[in-house]
């Protein structure tokens, strides 16, 4: 065997969204820090994959896209074939990638059997042919309401699959915030495999901000700058629309400039509508992707939904923030915002109670009063480092500690 033999395979199903992919890439970056020579292959299905810049020695296999219609219900995004056929195509590709790539670590994001159960057969075959591979299930802090998740896991055989095929379960959260194993009634055998790793964030500090980039966008300078961001954007138009109403309510005395970053998946019609509705207001609307983080860092107030990665960015950068969680059907975001706002990590308004009046009031009060997070109530944000340390065994890690060669 030539070259490096440490290989990691990651399964990240996103459909319309980028959250899982982003989180997995944050883990990749930490794996690369420990072991730069490692090869990482990501199986993704986002139609815009890889979207983010991949680390060195990292490549991806994109499989045909499916989108989630409801819990456990999927349909092909583009190909006019039945979901069963699409499942077969995906499953066959995944199985062959596993068997030909033969990773030492297989990290599966949040669905033990994969979407549509597509991992069931590949896992079975792979476990038999490569029993030494470490198979890990990664779960974000909160998956959804316990009764929904438990029923779904039972029905899909997710508990059984995790017991049979997985060596470990890493939770990308903190048990003091949400005791996932308890909430989802993990049996003893699973609890024994479960580790809470902390929240998985990026660790790079965004580039220094060029104030000109901001002043160029607006006709007037303003005291404050508000950043509104909706992650992937597929369902962010609701709170963005309400934000525009809230700003209009404040006119003509609007003490801030705002950027709305809609994300790559917002429907073009909704995007146009937002632009039209924001006319005359100090709001710049853009589908920007990569620069969002730099503007977020600069912002005096961040307004966003409660997606995992956005919340992590808000906490990591210690931003003053208002979080409007997705109303449903999953309670993941409302639960996350409730738990965190109870600790005063940010302000929140439940989407069903959101009005232009209470929104504008909260915006003004948070801008005027500033934000004072209690560091003691912060969760552990070093999840990516912790996960990487668990994934890359010490012996592999040591191998990279070579003496520097001349010319390095």
């Amino acid at each position, binding site marked *: 065997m030539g*070259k490096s033999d440490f290989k990691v395979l990651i399964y990240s199903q996103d459909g319309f969204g980028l959250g899982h992919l982003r989180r997995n890439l944050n883990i990749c970056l930490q794996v690369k820090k420990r072991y730069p020579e490692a090869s990482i292959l990501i199986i993704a299905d986002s*139609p815009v994959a890889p979207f983010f810049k991949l680390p060195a020695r990292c490549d991806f*296999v*994109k*499989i*045909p896209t499916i989108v989630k219609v409801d819990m456990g219900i999927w349909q092909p995004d583009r190909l006019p074939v039945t979901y069963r056929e699409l499942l077969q195509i995906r499953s066959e*590709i995944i199985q062959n990638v596993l068997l030909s790539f033969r990773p030492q670590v297989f990290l599966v994001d949040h669905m033990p059997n994969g979407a549509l159960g597509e991992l069931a057969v590949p896992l079975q075959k792979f476990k038999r042919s490569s029993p030494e591979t470490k198979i890990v299930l990664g779960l974000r802090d909160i998956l959804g309401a316990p009764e929904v998740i438990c029923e779904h896991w039972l029905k899909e055989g997710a508990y059984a699959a995790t017991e049979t095929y997985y060596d470990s379960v890493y939770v990308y959260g903190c048990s003091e915030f949400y005791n996932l194993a308890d909430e989802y009634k993990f049996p003893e055998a699973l609890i024994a495999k479960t580790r809470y790793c902390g929240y998985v964030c990026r660790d790079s500090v965004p580039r220094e901000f060029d104030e000109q980039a901001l002043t160029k966008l607006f006709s007037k300078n303003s005291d404050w700058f508000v950043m509104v961001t909706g992650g992937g954007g597929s369902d962010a138009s609701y709170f963005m629309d309400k934000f525009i109403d809230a700003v209009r309510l404040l006119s003509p005395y609007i003490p801030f400039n705002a950027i709305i970053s809609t994300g790559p998946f917002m429907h073009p019609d909704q995007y146009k509508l937002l632009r039209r509705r924001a006319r005359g207001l100090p709001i710049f609307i853009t589908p920007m992707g990569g620069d969002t983080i730099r503007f977020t860092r600069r912002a005096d107030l961040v307004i966003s939904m409660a997606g995992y990665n956005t919340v992590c960015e808000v906490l990591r950068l210690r931003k003053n923030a208002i979080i409007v969680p997705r109303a449903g059907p999953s309670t993941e975001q409302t639960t996350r915002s409730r738990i965190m706002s109870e600790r005063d990590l940010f302000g929140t308004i439940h989407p069903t109670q959101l009005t232009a009046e209470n929104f504008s009031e909260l915006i003004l009060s948070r801008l005027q009063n500033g934000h004072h997070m209690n560091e003691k109530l912060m969760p552990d944000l070093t999840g990516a480092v912790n996960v990487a340390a668990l994934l890359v065994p010490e012996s592999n890690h040591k191998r990279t500690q070579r003496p520097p060669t001349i010319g390095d």
Partner: protein
Amino acid sequence: MSSLRILMYSHDTLGMGHTWRTITIASHLAKNIANASILVLTDLPIIGRLRLPANVDYVHLPGVVLSTAQEYQARNLNLDLKKLIKIRCKITQSALKTFKPQLIIVERDPLVLPDEMDRILSFVRDKMPLTKVVWGLSDIIGKSDFIVREWTGQQVYQMLDRFCDEIWVYGLMEIFDQIKEYQIFPPLSEKFFYVGYLRAASKYEKNRVKSNHQLPVVLVTTGSGSDGFGLLETYIRFLEKSGGAALFQSVIVSGPMMRTSEKHLLKERAEKLPNVVFHRFSKHFLQLVKEADLVVTTSGYNTLCEILSYRKNMLFVPTVAPPNERLLRAQIFERLGLGELLSPESLNPEYLGEKVTSAVSNPHDSIDRMNSVNIGMDGLDKIVDRIKSLAGVTDSAEHLTD
């Protein structure tokens, strides 16, 4: 009628030409063949940034690149080439087995990793005998002596003949007769179909170039940009030297595959100049072509089609390296009167500047010239016709033997 399943297999080593053309064709087929279901297999790393129509999805394979030592190696993964090829073949076979296409269109240079195609197409012939296989080729793929030598050495003739039902040339026999130039004989020559050039049509109407001062517009493009730094740098140097005196506006498009460091360098310099707009990648590229009075191009196939679609005057500055397909294409189109070829060896800012200035200052010459030549641009429709005749033979997806 059951759906017509087409698998398009594309590979790009450096640029993005093959996958770009694949997407162009797939988009047209999806709109013009009822019930078409198209799966594109590609290793283009930026595929996620290209827009795909309904009924088209893609599978991305881990990439292969050509190293500076001219050896193939994994694009990113730290793996031996052999192992990487195995993974790519396994993914492709999985897709073939489960998607069960009636038609496969191969879009890649037959000289690149011929073993990989051999494995894949052998699998098709063994397991899916009813599936039709087509190999698509650009109008011109290289200088005749080079192609004949390499195709002979790497047994490309045998491979094409053994595996393919048809070979489509996206060009015209009158312009370049591959059968004659590349010494293709029956029975392989009987499988060749010249479908013509592929017309591009902009979906957008709005003008993109701000022309408040009525100056002519020069568009400078190097396709994907993977090897475009030299031309763009020379062009910018000419503008810098002319001190803003140029009597035209410039739109410079670096292409998405240009190295970030190179792009930054060019962008920084371009932005200091008057009447210059710099893009890395524009979804409005065709609109930019449409608004241009002159296009300076490295004469890659796709860009040529785009320029021909709007009948724009051209200056050819091809990159010169075997198989010299671009140089040859530029020579031929210059002879047709559709543009002027700049001698690549003597490219310098003064020479380039002089040629550009003279081309934009005599617009009527070029318009007359362009209008006197008629080039068959209906390749996309011809492809639909070919597929209908091929699919008539195969009407069922249930023909996989095990």
